[in-house]
């Protein structure tokens, strides 16, 4: 989590208006889902990897490793689609194991390969968005798109406090670790429950103290903030002038 978040704040496209990046990813997703051919997914994959590495300047090792991990999981995932199972023999080449017949047909193979390419392309598009765009920028975009303010406030708070609660969570886990709280299953369960309950109490108290601090700053319900100023692509500026 920290990795992706850190890259999102420190790549060449961080300050680029989120609409362009969300647009890129959305277009890629539409292509992936709309064209039922493996070529669509694979070309989206190639394009998104290129954009992430060449345009955003992300380290290629990290980007490729992320995609490779997803590919290996997916390869197993589509197996469930490629192989059919039945209690009787089908017309396709069959392998029998006990009461079950396993078969592979050109149809299922095609579906599996479309799916594989599609999901890989889709995941690459998501990775591009996640690695280049801070969550704050996406929330800014949603605000500009007139998503209800209440939802925006919830997103702002959840994103912010995920990090502070993760900090507390880390400290609590460490405190249990040093007291051998995870030595065996029973103790682990107790420790986990303890952390879960304490974390809830902490979240609750934090919300109270935040309430005080925000009241002190004149807060009366809506969390009004200024939008960030984002860059636009150079070619667009040139066109405007």
């Amino acid at each position, binding site marked *: 989590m920290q990795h992706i978040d850190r890259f999102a704040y420190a790549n060449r496209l961080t300050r680029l208006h989120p609409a362009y990046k969300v647009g890129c990813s959305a277009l890629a997703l539409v292509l992936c889902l709309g064209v039922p051919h493996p070529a669509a997914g694979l070309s989206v994959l190639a394009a998104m990897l290129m954009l992430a590495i060449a345009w955003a300047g992300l380290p290629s090792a990290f980007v490729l490793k992320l995609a490779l991990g997803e590919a290996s999981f997916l390869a197993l995932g589509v197996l469930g689609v490629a192989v059919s199972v039945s209690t009787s023999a089908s017309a396709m080449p069959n392998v029998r194991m006990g009461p079950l017949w396993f078969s592979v047909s050109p149809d299922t193979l095609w579906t599996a390969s479309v799916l594989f390419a599609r999901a890989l392309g889709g995941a690459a598009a998501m990775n591009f968005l996640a690695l280049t765009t801070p969550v704050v920028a996406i929330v800014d975009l949603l605000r500009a798109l007139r998503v209800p303010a209440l939802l925006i406030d919830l997103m*702002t708070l959840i994103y912010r406090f995920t990090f502070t609660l993760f900090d507390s969570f880390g400290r609590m886990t460490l405190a249990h670790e040093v007291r051998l709280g995870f030595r065996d299953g029973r103790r682990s369960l107790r420790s986990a429950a303890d952390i879960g309950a304490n974390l809830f109490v902490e979240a609750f108290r934090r919300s109270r103290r935040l309430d*005080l601090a925000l009241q002190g700053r004149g807060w009366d319900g809506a969390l009004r903030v200024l939008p960030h100023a984002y860059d636009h692509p150079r070619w667009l500026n040139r066109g405007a002038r």
Partner: protein
Amino acid sequence: MTLGFSDVHFSYPALSVPALTGATLRFAAGEAVALVGRNGSGKSTLMLLANGILRPGQGAVTLDGQAVRYDRRGLLDLRSQVGVVFQNPEEQLFSASVYQDLSLGPLNLGFSSVEARERVLHAAGRCDLLNLLDRPTHALSGGEKARAALAGVLAMGPRFLFADELTNSLDPWMRANVLEIFADLLADGCTVVLATHDHALAASWAQRAVWLDAGRVRADGPADVVLTALRQQLPPAFSHRRQTADARPPAAVSAGLNEVPL
């Protein structure tokens, strides 16, 4: 411009002991005040009253002699004049963007986006945050978070700043940064009231000290006089142990130190 407490009483609903009894205080422009006293002596309550988050059960909080009105308009007026920064900066920053966090106060006061932006930049400049405005809050250090929390309040342009143990968890360098900001504010005629347990800091920094004890103002006057009186109340064991440690470290300790492999 003055902020006054006249015979202020306050009790929390669930507690039988009053948090503040008969507090009468007056803060004038440009004063550096240390607020001292034990945990639970009423320091935080005093700050919450100053900012209108709590309403006195009895007595009144006054701004320039006028009793504070506790309606929406009156509270916004009060909060634009009196700012409070709490103990843990981590708990006061609600946004992952420093810039957006700072903009909350000015926008709440009804400033336009242009004015709010100016105020944010001004406060950020004061707190040396200009190059951190784009940094996510969770990537800031403790001292930077303290400065961000401070800037969030300063962006509202308060004439009175109450800081609740803001410097406590900071290392000496970070603390020096915060004290520099305070010095700037004082030079501008802003009043800074710092609640602290650090009596050495209080003695060196403040002109005036207010000593709260079990909800009462025990002493209020020149910092050195009040702190000297306070020091005489410190538990004896503490001063005793410190004296022996100064005079002659126990043999075991010094021996142990020498044995540490490097």
